């Protein structure tokens, strides 16, 4: 629902990392999106190009999204199991004293970037 706002946050983070790492251009951003994060990867992909086009740093870059499945953890029996938004009971013992152990993350894993190397060569 707020994919646009998240995209702007992602680009801000990447811009900061680019400045810190002498990056001239971003080729790709690898993003991990939890299956229970509420974000729709198809919407992130659809809006990425127009949002990225606003800054030459991101010209022609790609957004690669890896979906991280939800994981439940049962406090009663200790089982770890795949969790969906619909299944809030332990898949092993059926108990409802469960917590989410993954699936809500939105993480920029890494970026593939072109760095300008001339400056470093000058130092050498």
């Amino acid at each position, binding site marked *: *629902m*707020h994919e646009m706002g998240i995209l702007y946050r992602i680009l801000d983070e990447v811009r900061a990392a680019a400045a810190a790492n002498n*990056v001239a251009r971003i080729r790709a951003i690898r993003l991990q999106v939890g299956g229970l994060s*509420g974000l729709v990867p198809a919407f992130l992909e659809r809006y990425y190009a127009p949002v990225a086009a606003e800054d030459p740093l991101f010209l022609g870059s790609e957004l690669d999204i890896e979906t991280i499945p939800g994981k439940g953890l049962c406090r009663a029996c200790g089982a770890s199991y795949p969790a969906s*938004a619909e299944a809030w009971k332990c898949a092993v013992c059926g108990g*409802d004293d469960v917590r989410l152990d993954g699936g809500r993350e939105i*993480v920029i*894993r890494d*970026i593939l*970037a072109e760095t300008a190397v001339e400056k470093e060569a000058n130092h050498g």
Partner: protein
Amino acid sequence: MAEIRLIDLKRSVLADNDADADNLRAELKRRGTFLLNLMSSPGSGKTTLLKALVPHLAGKVRWGVMEADIDSSVDAEAISRLGVPAVQLHTGGMCHLDADMTRQGLRGFGDEHFDLVVLENVGNLVCPAEFDTGAVRNMTLLSVPEGDDKPLKYPLMYQTCDLLAVGKTDVLPCFDFDRDRLVRNARARNPAIEILFLSAKTGEGVAALADWLLRQVREWTA
């Protein structure tokens, strides 16, 4: 000449907001202000409930209201007509508030000191639950016409809230809303959630909500 590099980031996109929210909570603690984040669907009766709280809180606590909407200031006007300071935040199309927008909203009160500030978040059961506003407690209001199955459909909202208020109980006879089923559904999502039934129209439960708020304020500012 360019070189292609893989730069490891492992940055959580919401981590900066979470840290900012913690900072805001620390600021509020220093100032002795309890901030409640009130969330619900549009039309569940948030503003009407706040208006009903006015006489119950009068003389007991200095309080103000921040109204967050995509547009218009009808909610803030309705609250300030009752003598409670209110600021209106416009999210400009955003579906939720984050900690920085909340901090800006608090600045709208100027130097006035409050023991309690209620943030009336954008009416939406999805996005507001995902962003920590810096509030001390989260409350969600569910009105009877919305149905007792909402905790099943919007689990995160109920997981992030400390208090669930079920409003518009005056219309219970008109709807297939089962109070026990609602309690079961909410507790399945969040075993620790407190639940109050109330009606701003008849006044049922409003005093209990005021007591809950005053207790929270006392504990936070002690």
